[in-house]
């Protein structure tokens, strides 16, 4: 196995791996690589070995056909072992039922399926619906309306989205835009507790899906564009009281940095860096919010979460590395105590939030078994980290990047491009990727069958101009005019299958609009994702060939899931409804004549209003 991995990394070409069907199709290429890769091909002719790369079993238990958290499992693979729908029959998929959420804002949430019930949570006003899957047409079992404060809409950057709920121990946990975490009885929809943990009057909102780990509900705040100090809180799943709070800026004590904190790189070592890497007091309004994804490794008892961009965007107001923003923490799952930290983007210049998903995998890396964490990061690099130490094993761009010139693997530091430094009164043009990153929040999926990570992402560049900004609590704290443009090639989005072992793409599909939806991959070797035009697509996990597509009523920015229904058959579900930062031009009815509208995103989405309209509908598919 060790030999095979080494050779795969050396040969690089996708046909060198043991994916026989793909190899047969490209016989000419196969012959050409035969000379170089002969030993590997011999190995591949033996009975199929265990997957070379796979999530730790404790973080990704055998599939029970349910979908209890947006990321599918603690390893965040978004991989389903269901295989009834496969490459051969996916073309026959048809609609099983639909359901209108009644809310026409960006639908970024993943539906959940537990037993015979599906749970969906809408964007503001964050209504939760339970649908009975055991009856024809999946009628509503109950709904819960939390009635969040309408004023919260005014401090929610980039649409009033939510990224979903989480299920544990008979309870559904979700967050409201106005800063409440609520636990509902999954059977009755009755609230069990309601914790008010964020304050809209200082610009805090909550848009992330909670993660439940060992009886604690983990939640972070949004507000990186409002000068909000980022935190992650652990609430007791039983009664909702706050067990611990870890801030992402400020003194070590409040960041929960103690004697166990052992960062791998020198740049992250020192006392109270969350204070000293900022101008006086600036850390109090410095961002570093946590509105994305958390993964959990039960073996190491660690949770992993990123931190958002520093505020304001204009970097002239915050000289220094701005710890602990735009980075990633490993924390003790019980106490929140930090174990290590790595900063993707020190002193961020371009709003590169570091909050994307982290996929936990075990693999051989240069001959040694390593516990790794794979992160397609907003700054454009596909990072492979050793998740026990935070050491960077690999950082390769997975799309066009010119804002930096790579990652120094000795120091761990991102190498800035001096031509793309932003500042007050200066217009810097053609910065790639944009503030929204090569990839934003939209989560990728990993298949142990192919060893590929399926990444929905953007292909955009931007002009930036720093402007003066005043801090007024509860109002935006940005200080940057941004104007986005399509990236090289003109396609604004892409869907890339990344060969983690070979550190290069296996294939990539161009999309006209940014791919703002998540992805899911199955043992049937089918990958599902949606486009902002409204197409819900199934492509081959091996080749990327389009196998099936269905046009939904609005653009798709949600997270597909797949589950086994009460009838024993496999279903696929997606929420359709355009919005989010990329789709704010439609969901917020913005004016395309202003290039800086929606923090510059409108300029590159001018035609979206002529392509799709706002919506909010659940689609569920099955084979006939």
């Amino acid at each position, binding site marked *: 196995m060790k030999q095979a991995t080494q050779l795969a990394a050396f040969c690089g070409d996708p046909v060198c791996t043991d994916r026989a069907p793909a190899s047969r199709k490209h016989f000419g290429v196969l012959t050409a690589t035969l000379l170089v890769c002969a030993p590997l091909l011999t190995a591949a002719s033996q009975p199929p070995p265990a997957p070379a790369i796979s999530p730790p079993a404790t973080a990704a238990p055998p599939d029970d056909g349910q979908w209890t958290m947006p990321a599918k499992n603690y390893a965040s693979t978004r991989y389903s072992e269901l295989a009834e729908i496969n490459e051969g029959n996916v073309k026959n998929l048809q609609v099983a039922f639909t359901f209108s959420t009644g809310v026409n804002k960006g639908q970024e949430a993943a539906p959940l399926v537990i037993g015979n019930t599906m749970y969906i949570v809408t964007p503001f006003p964050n209504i939760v619906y339970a649908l009975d899957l055991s009856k024809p047409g999946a009628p509503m079992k109950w709904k819960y309306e939390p009635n969040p404060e309408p004023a919260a809409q005014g401090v*929610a950057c*980039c649409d009033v989205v939510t990224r979903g709920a989480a299920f544990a121990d008979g309870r559904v946990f979700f967050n409201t835009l106005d800063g409440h975490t609520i636990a509902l009885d999954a059977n009755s929809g009755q609230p069990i507790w309601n914790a008010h943990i964020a304050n809209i009057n200082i610009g805090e909102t909550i848009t992330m899906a909670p993660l439940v780990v060992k009886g604690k509900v983990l939640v972070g705040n949004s507000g990186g564009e409002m000068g909000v100090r980022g935190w992650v809180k652990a609430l007791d799943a039983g009664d909702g009281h706050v067990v611990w709070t870890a801030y992402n800026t400020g003194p070590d004590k409040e960041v929960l940095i103690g004697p166990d904190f052992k960062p791998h790189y020198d740049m992250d070592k020192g006392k109270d860096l969350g204070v000293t890497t900022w101008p006086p007091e600036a850390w109090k309004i410095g961002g570093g919010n946590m509105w994305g994804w958390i993964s959990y490794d039960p073996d190491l008892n660690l949770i992993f979460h990123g931190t958002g961009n520093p505020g304001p965007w204009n970097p002239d107001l915050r000289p220094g590395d701005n710890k602990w923003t735009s980075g990633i923490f490993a924390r003790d799952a019980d106490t929140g105590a930090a174990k290590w930290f790595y900063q993707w983007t020190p002193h961020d210049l371009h709003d590169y939030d570091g909050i994307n998903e982290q996929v936990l995998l075990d693999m051989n890396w240069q001959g040694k078994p390593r516990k790794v964490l794979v992160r397609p990061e907003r700054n454009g690099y596909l990072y492979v980290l050793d998740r026990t130490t935070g050491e960077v094993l690999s950082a390769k761009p997975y799309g066009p990047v010119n804002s930096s010139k790579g990652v120094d693997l000795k120091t761990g530091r991102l190498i800035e491009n001096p031509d793309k430094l932003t500042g007050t009164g200066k217009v810097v043009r053609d910065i790639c990727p944009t503030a929204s990153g090569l990839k934003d929040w939209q989560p990728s999926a990993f298949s142990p069958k192919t060893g590929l990570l399926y990444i929905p992402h953007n292909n955009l560049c931007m002009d930036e101009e720093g402007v003066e900004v005043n801090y007024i609590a509860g109002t935006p704290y940005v200080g940057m005019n941004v104007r986005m443009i399509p990236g090289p090639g003109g396609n604004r989005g892409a869907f890339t299958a990344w060969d983690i072992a070979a550190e290069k793409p296996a294939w990539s599909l161009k999309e006209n609009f940014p791919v703002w939806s998540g992805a899911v991959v199955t043992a049937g070797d089918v990958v599902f994702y949606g486009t902002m035009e409204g197409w819900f697509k199934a492509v081959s996990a091996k080749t990327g060939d389009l196998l099936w597509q269905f046009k939904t009523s609005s653009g798709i920015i949600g997270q597909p899931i797949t589950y086994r229904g009460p009838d024993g058959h496999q279903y696929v579900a997606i929420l359709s409804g355009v919005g989010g930062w990329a789709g704010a031009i439609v969901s917020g009815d913005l004016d395309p004549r*202003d290039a800086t509208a*929606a923090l510059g995103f409108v300029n590159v989405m001018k035609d979206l209003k002529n392509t799709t309209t706002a919506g909010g509908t659940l689609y569920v598919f099955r084979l006939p």
Partner: protein
Amino acid sequence: MRPVVALLLSASLALAACQREERDTRPQSALGSGEQPIPVTTLEPGGQRPSPADNKAASFEANAFHLSEGKRLFGWFNCSGCHANGGGGMGPALMDEKWIYGSSMESIHATIRDGRPNGMPSFRDKIPDDQIWELAAFVRSLSGNAPSSAAPSRNDDMMVHPSENRMPDAATLGKSP
């Protein structure tokens, strides 16, 4: 106690009046100018009543100085953080022809001063009243509702849209009716 304060106040006012000529820069108290009953709908049972126009509206509208001050304040008070340079973002677009709470100077002034329930904050105690009127005048100019002779000219920085004095009227998008 109260008569003493009133006496002191009038004395200080009298002193101030002695020192300089009368100017109209702060004709009323800096924070908040009385209540203006501005309806936010045109639907009024029994027929529309004439809206009592605030005499301040006319003096701020179409005034080049106030419009350019409004443009400066639009950035300084972070209005641009939500409404961008008129195209909107977290908040609605201001350069289009759609007005959720009315297009009059008085309505816009009331929106900034008192806020609106779906996310517009109240700046009542943050922005002096005259500056709210300046902001209101600038907001109207974003959709071409100000004479080009008075509206601010082009930005010094990144050109994000035509300058306000060249902005086509939003209702007609520059076409003659």
